[in-house]
């Protein structure tokens, strides 16, 4: 792969909150020289049709991801712990407001 060439602007990941009460959701990325410009570019690019009320931008380099190769092991622990889910508790089924 060739080295990145001339563009000195880093990549930013963009998260938009569509409405009050909702989480910020990842919508894509963009290039910007710094955080101030990134948030402005994100406004112009990702909210042209009123899609958002709040924007987060994060340097793509600053995002740490769980190891994709270890994903089965990493998320395995949740499996089998059925007692974390409300549907596990069948005896209380049919009791009002429970």
């Amino acid at each position, binding site marked *: *792969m*060739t080295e*990145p*060439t*001339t*563009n*000195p*602007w880093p*990549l930013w990941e963009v998260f938009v909150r569509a409405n009050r009460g909702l989480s910020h959701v990842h*919508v*894509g*990325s*963009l*290039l910007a*020289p*710094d955080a101030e*410009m990134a948030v402005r570019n994100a406004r112009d*690019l990702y909210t*042209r*049709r009123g899609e958002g009320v709040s924007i987060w931008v994060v340097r793509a380099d600053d995002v740490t*991801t769980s190891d*994709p*190769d270890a994903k089965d092991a990493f998320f395995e622990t949740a499996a089998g712990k059925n007692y974390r889910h409300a549907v596990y508790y069948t005896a209380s089924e049919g009791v009002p407001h429970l």
Partner: protein
Amino acid sequence: MTSPADAHDADAQRAFDDLIANERRIEPRDWMPEAYRKTLIRQISQHAHSEIIGMQPEGNWITRAPSLKRKAILIAKVQDEAGHGLYLYSAAQTLGITRDEMTDQLIDGRARYSSIFNYPTPTWADMGAIGWLVDGAAICNQVPLCRASYGPYARAMVRICKEESFHQRQGFEILLALMQGSPEQRVMAQDAVDRWYWPSLAMFGPPDDQSPNSAQSMAWKIKRFSNDELRRRFVGMLVPQAEALGVTLPDPDLRYDADQGVTAMGEIDWDDFFAVLRGDGPCNAERIQRRRTAHEEGAWVREAAAAYAAKQAAPRTEAA
């Protein structure tokens, strides 16, 4: 004897195949066959370049649009194309290629983009024909891509398709206004339809028996329908729309049956299509040159902003 690495790859390949078979999405950090990655990078970056180069034939008319309302619509449309290019560059970047590499490929003439944008736009009616026919063909091609197996690509396409429905409608309405106008305007509209009809059909790609990469792309569920199938479906949609407009589609061999759809159509001039693809189109050089000039003349601005960001960041780092 298989090495641990081979065993790992075989497992990963199996996991990948299962995801594809079960209509699940492949995501950026997943293992994927190198050929799948390369195919996607090629397809997504070509698609992004098409959006960016596609800004030019219409952008040329922003300053000359014949009414202020049309000017506003055209600015919004060309701006959307810039946006779509960026959504797609962003999807391609998740596969390990940078915007710079893609830009370099484009302005060096190494990358392809849709050859439709190498045709000129001599009249205002071209704005209508591009919206109706070119965006119409693009949407036909793109809606199935919303279900492409690669997650970031599919998500970008959903966003793009939603926005492009406006593009096709505004193009149709430009032609409709012309067809309801003076005799001169009607001639202008028909002429543009005559010039854009065949190139828009060529956008679906070569006939199925001459499309070497199609089978693999279908197997990977990047592509969902064959070129000819989509082309036929598109023409079927155009016929009643052309009737509503009062324009004639320039294909004397076209036979359409309301129940059966398109039953016969003329042959595309593939020699012309491949000539334009190779770079012999009327505007190939001009389009690339404009992109290169904008990129090169913008270098000092990008450098300035980066230098400013570095200076602003420096004191904070020292303080921390």
